[in-house]
Structure formats: structure tokens, C-alpha cells
């Protein structure tokens, strides 16, 4: 097995006295497709925030390519290829859709063959290039989140519930898109409540419950795991 691209080691995050993440450890291999599941409020987005540097960690380590990155400012991590989308879409409100992508491309991306227009076309947003984010629907807003993350030319892409609210067909489309991106060499962590998408996409599943990792392994085994079932279905 090749060396892991991302290593999270004994990561703990406290908000005041509340422990949102408790000694979480996990690894993501180069080129892997990892699904991250867990009930609402279990700490998935907090884990993304800790990995990307949006919130400081309380203890533990985060490594990219065996280099510690947990003390780097977020923009350095993005420039190293660690890119995440936001669960609640947070576009740059005064910039057009195309310029939203341009910021990511200028600062985190490398001059890639994918032009802004191609990326927008990939997500069906090409007609909106000159529009402002407030003119988009919630669903288009989620697609913009994904398009902007892709514009940053990620090595490791963490998508946080980009499919919420999408139709059946659209979910399939996005899964297909992410599979192709992965084939092109991008390692992807998918956070998602839509199990159909998670199962179609993931090579491995990690489940977090109340800030602790309770399962990590083959998707079928994880979804059959007693802890996971209990967390989702109750006692």
C-alpha cells in the first residue's frame, strides 16, 4: 500500500467544555474514495474544518504527505491541494459565478486545462457565468460550491453534503462527476447523508458518532456494523 495522503492522528476538538471530536484518527490513501457518514451533529463538518484549518484543533496532528499541516494557515493548506466545500453554500456574494471560480483558480489552482467555462458547463451552470450568486437557486448554489472547489485544482477534495436537495438524477450526475474526477487522480472524501450516493461512490466508509470514530472499513461491513445501526436507528 502506498503512503497515506492524509493522516489525522488523535485529533480532538473542544468548543468550550463540549467535546466535538474525541481522539479521531484516520488515514486517506492517495487516489482513494472515502465516504464519511454519521448522524446530524456527530462532528463531520467539524472534522473538515479542523483538517482545512478553518477552526484550530485542540490537540492531535494532521499530516498531508507526512508533513504536519495543522499549524499552517488555511490558505497554505489550500495551496498544497487540500480543498473543501462548505456544507452551507458560501459564495463570494459580490462576484459573478465565473469570478467565484476565478478566485479559487488564481490562488489555489494551477493553470489547468479546465477553463472556468468548462467547469461551469460540467455542472450545468454555463448560462449563469455572469450572474451573481444571489440569483441562483439553492441547488445551483451547491453546484457552485462544487465547481469552485474543483477550480482550486485539488489533490484531496472534501465535499461536505453537496448533494443535499438534489433530484435523483442530479445525484447520479454528481456521483458520476466525482468518480471521473477521482479517475483523473483526485483523492476524494465524501460526506453525505444520501446513502445511495455514498454506497455508489465509496471504496471505504468511516462512521463518526458523537465525535468518535465507531467504524472504518468496507462499506457493506460498516453499514451492517452494530454501532452504526444503533446510531442511525436508535436502540
Amino acid at each position, binding site marked *: 500500500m502506498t503512503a497515506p495522503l492524509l493522516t489525522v492522528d488523535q485529533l480532538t476538538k473542544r468548543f468550550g467544555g463540549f467535546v466535538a471530536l474525541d481522539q479521531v484518527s484516520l488515514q486517506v490513501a492517495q487516489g482513494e474514495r472515502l465516504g464519511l457518514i454519521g448522524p446530524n451533529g456527530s462532528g463531520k463538518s467539524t472534522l473538515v474544518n479542523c483538517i*482545512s484549518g*478553518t477552526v484550530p484543533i485542540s490537540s492531535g496532528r494532521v499530516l498531508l504527505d507526512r508533513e504536519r499541516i495543522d499549524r499552517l494557515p*488555511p*490558505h497554505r493548506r489550500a495551496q498544497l491541494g487540500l480543498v473543501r466545500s462548505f456544507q452551507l453554500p458560501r*459564495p*463570494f456574494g459580490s*462576484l459573478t459565478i465565473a469570478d467565484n471560480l*476565478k478566485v*479559487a483558480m488564481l*490562488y489555489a489552482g494551477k493553470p489547468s486545462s479546465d477553463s472556468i467555462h468548462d467547469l461551469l458547463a460540467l455542472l450545468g451552470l454555463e448560462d449563469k457565468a455572469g450572474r451573481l450568486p444571489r440569483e441562483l437557486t439553492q441547488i445551483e448554489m451547491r453546484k457552485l460550491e462544487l465547481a469552485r472547489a474543483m477550480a482550486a485544482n485539488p489533490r484531496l477534495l472534501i465535499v461536505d453534503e453537496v448533494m443535499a436537495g438534489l433530484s435523483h438524477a442530479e445525484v447520479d450526475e454528481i456521483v458520476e462527476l466525482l468518480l471521473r474526477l477521482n479517475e483523473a487522480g483526485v483523492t476524494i472524501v465524501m460526506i453525505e447523508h444520501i446513502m445511495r450516493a455514498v454506497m455508489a461512490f465509496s471504496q471505504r466508509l468511516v462512521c463518526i458518532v458523537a465525535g468518535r470514530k465507531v467504524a472504518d472499513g468496507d462499506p457493506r461491513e460498516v453499514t451492517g456494523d452494530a454501532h452504526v445501526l444503533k446510531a442511525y436507528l436508535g436502540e
Partner: protein
Amino acid sequence: MTNLRFGLLGLALIVALWLAGRLVTNEYVFFAGYAVAQYILLATAWNLLGGYAGYVNFGTAAFFALGAYVSVAVNKLFEPPLIVLILVGALASGAVGLAMGYLTLKLRGVFFSIATLALAIVAQAVVTNWEFVGGSSGAYLLRPTAGPWGGSYVEYLFYVMLVMAVGAVVLARCIERSKIGFGLAAIRDDELVGEAYGVPTLRLKLLVTVLSGALMGMAGAPLPFYVAYLDPPSAFNLAYAVNTIAMPLIGGASTWVGPVIGAVLLTAVQETAMVTISSAANLMIVGLLMVLFISLAPNGIMGLLRGVRSRA
């Protein structure tokens, strides 16, 4: 239009105004022209930080007055050419910008603004007790009677200010369309997301704070010669801070045109009010205009124009 073309256009404007100036015999025209150019420079400088990055600076007077007072001090020591005074003013105010940025840029929104206001108050207190430049009783300067190339000194001051104002506008436009401009827009819209997409927010904010401060210092450096008598209450006048905020707001803060339109318009309105009503009416008019625009046209005149065009 490319940056080079725009720069050449600016140069052409300077030359045109210089040629037109040959025909002017009334000294007042240069006095008024200086005031307009000075406000274009100040408003453009303010807008780099306030309009592009969204950090509202209430301390314009501090940077501006610092430029003026450093100019008084250096002039007292060496009497160097004006260009040297301007450069020293830029350095001094740029350095204060750097220090202020370092201390305050981690503060967001209104806290940053309050810190800049505090800076202005502290700076005024320091200058008021700086005896070398006249302290609270102020400093008199002998304005040379003629400029270095003939013509009156006020005429010369006008062209100097004009060149700086045009230069600042060209610089602002270059920045607006550059990588830095996109980074600043990201900071203005959502700093945390900007960071997550690779924008080095702290470094960019420091850069524009220094640049903005330096330009304000440059605007202040010729002031002692323009007014011939400088004391702290006039150099640190509230009007500078209020006007430099009002001008980009009224013109439209997200583009380089906004501060230019706002500066020309407000200076004209104020000069008229000064003559026809009273000098006290000035700030009141500015205040009213600001309230009007903030509540009815938050994106200024440029925003209104864009709205009309997109509906047409």
C-alpha cells in the same frame, strides 16, 4: 482597456489639463482644482482598503495629517524639493499603516473601524504636543511665490496633486483587475472562505493598509504649502475622515470610478454650499447625502447606473 492604455489616457488627461491651465488667469481655479484632486487621491486611497477589502478606516485624518506634519518637520530641517517631502510623507504614513495593520487587522468589521478612530485621536494628541512643528499653536510656512517652472506656486501644487491623483486612480484600477483585486474582493465578501481557497488574507490586508496609508500621506505632504498655516485641529479635521468615506460610498465603492465621481461631486457641492450657505452647512450636507445613499442606493451612483443598464 489594458492597464497601459488606461495609464496613457491618464497621462493625456494631465497634459490636457495642463494645456487648459495655460489659459487660466484666476488663481482660485487652481485652489479649487487642488482640493478636488486631493480628495480624488484620498478617496481612492481609502477605497483600496474600504471598498475593495471591506475594511472601513475612520482614521484618514491621521495618515493625511501625518504626511503634512512630517513634511513640515523635514522642510524645517533641510528644505528639500517638494517631491522629497512627498516621498517622506508616503514612507511615514505607510509605516504607520503597517503598524496599524499589524495591530488591528485581526479585528473584524466594526472593531477595526473603532481602532482606526482611536489611532486618529492618539496621533492628534501626539502632534499637538510636538513642539518642533509648532505644537498646539500651529506652524507657519512661507509659500514660495513662484513654482519651479514659472507660474504661481499654487498652480504648481495643483499639477503635483493632479499627477498623484491620476497615478493613484491608475494604480487602483490595475489592482482592481489583478489577482490582488480578486483576493481583496474575496476578503470583503467572506474572509474565511477566501482563506479556504488559498487567499493569503492577512498579507493582502497588510499590503493594502500600507498602500492606502502611504497614498494618504502623499496627499498630506503638500498641504502645509497649500494652506500656509497648519495647526492640529485643521490637519486632523473630522471632515477629512467623513469626506473620504462619503465619496466612495456616494460614487460606488467596488470600482475605481466610484471615488472619482464621489470626490468631484462632493467637493463641488461643498464649495457651493460654502459660498451660498455657510461653511457649517458642509458636513451636514455630506451627512445627509451619506444617509440617503446608504439607505436608498447602497452601491452608490455606479450601482444605480448598473441597475438602469441591466433593466434597459
